[in-house]
């Protein structure tokens, strides 16, 4: 058996299966026809332009962006102190706390969305927008704590101790010593959180209404009614956005070191 040849055949087939569909989406999005098809009927960029003209896509893109940015920031505000405490202090019940904070990863998103809607939003009269924000924050919190904790663990404690001995306050030591040193980890957590939140569907499923939808939910709703290539164009654009963000992150901060 020619092992070099078989290696490349196996990899070729695997990549065709994994990446081929994505290339087909791009091709279908470049179609000049009005129906979703591959191979495309003629070439044009009209569906890529149409995407920006669909009112609901613009609104839901804004919602998703807002959730991804501010939900992740909120998760970091909660998560950084928690990660700091768990790697630097003897916290009573640390294991329990860890389990509670990481529970959002273990529980499937659709259940979280439903439970929040039924036992938090409805009884307390909370707005659906706020609920979406809180749900996305909670969803990202485990990632924020885990990634930031990992980079705190790599940071030697004696630098902080030195700062404290030299008369720095504990907060001062955190701000001047810890924060600058875990910058990469925080950025990695932000990017991971952003991409996770932006692509998230199940959590938002029950927490979306006609007036307020995240972009992926809106795309699903659109493709149930329309059979044109605009969702293909949007999918391609979003994929390039995610890949671009992750690649830039890999290049500048070495994302894969943190996750």
């Amino acid at each position, binding site marked *: 058996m020619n092992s070099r040849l078989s290696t490349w055949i196996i990899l070729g087939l695997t*990549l065709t299966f994994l990446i081929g569909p994505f290339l087909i989406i791009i091709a279908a999005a470049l179609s000049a026809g009005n129906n979703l098809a591959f191979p495309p009927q003629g070439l044009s960029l009209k569906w890529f332009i149409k995407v920006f003209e669909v009112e609901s896509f613009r609104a839901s893109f804004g919602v998703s962006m807002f959730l991804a940015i501010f939900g992740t920031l909120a998760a970091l505000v909660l998560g950084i102190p928690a990660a700091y405490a768990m790697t630097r*202090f003897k916290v009573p019940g640390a294991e329990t706390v860890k389990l509670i904070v990481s529970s959002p990863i273990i529980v*499937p998103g659709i259940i979280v969305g439903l439970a929040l809607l039924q036992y938090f939003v409805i009884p307390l009269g909370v707005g659906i927008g706020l609920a979406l924000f809180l749900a996305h924050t909670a969803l990202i919190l485990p990632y924020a704590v885990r990634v930031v904790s990992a980079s705190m663990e790599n940071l030697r404690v004696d630098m902080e101790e030195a700062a404290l001995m030299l008369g720095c306050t504990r907060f001062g030591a955190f701000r001047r010593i810890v924060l600058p040193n875990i910058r990469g980890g925080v950025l990695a957590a932000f990017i991971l959180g952003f991409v996770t939140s932006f692509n998230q569907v199940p959590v938002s499923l029950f927490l979306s209404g006609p007036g307020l939808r995240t972009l992926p939910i809106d795309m699903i709703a659109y493709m149930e009614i329309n059979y044109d290539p605009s969702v293909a164009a949007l999918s391609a654009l979003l994929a390039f956005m995610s890949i671009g963000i992750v690649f830039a992150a890999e290049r500048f901060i070495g994302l894969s070191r943190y996750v």
Partner: protein
Amino acid sequence: MFENRAIGLALVLPAAIFAAALFLLPVGILLSEAFRTETGWSLSAYGEFFASPRNQTVFFRTLKLATLVAAVSAVIGYAAAFAIVSLPPTSRGRMFGLVTLPLMISPVARTYAWLVILGRTGFVNQILVDLGLIETPIRILFTETAVFIGLLQLFLPLMIISLVSAMENMPRDAVPAARILGANWLQVFWKVILPLTREGLVIGGTLVFTGSMTAYITPAILGGSKVLMLETLLYQRVTVANDFVAASVIAMILIVMSFSANLLLKRLATARKSR
């Protein structure tokens, strides 16, 4: 390590309270829904849920598809991981990047692609008709096959990643040594590769299995109401029938599955650290 417990606790509490109030409490109430009846606590909701033939079908279909996806991704994963590990370092890194690339793409986009490929006027049907293999387009969408293909494509990268990292930890000479000693490839796999990568297989298998069990988008788009899985059944029960008891039972099944998988992974991780 600082000794001050009060400060530590104060720093952890906001996150813990947030997760508890927004997660544990609502999810706990949802789970308790199935045990509460007018006369007190009972398990009858579970009996009723599993007595329904439709629910049984969905339950076993979900288990079957998740098992099948895990098994097939293991087979493809071993071939792909072995091929990746045997590449020279630079192309190995590049290939690893290409395999993980789909993980960054929105699952909606990845699932949507299969509509184009598997649809009635889709790519596959066109080829089959053009080749004269079939006369009229066959239905592939909204079958278990479509859901299976979608899930496999969604989760295969996780299996490959787990197996690649397991194989990178394998002693470099193990496979050549076995070959020189006269083992054929099947023997090499069973006696050398499989035992040495068992941990990676378990990790990958658990990720793929739970991922497929708890997937929503793929069965929703590629299976529709014809091929319900547990998550799509939950959605349908709530939105169509307002049936929170069924939702509660399904939630319990999914959480128990997901939680035990997590425990297993954690145990493996700590076992590896202490070695």
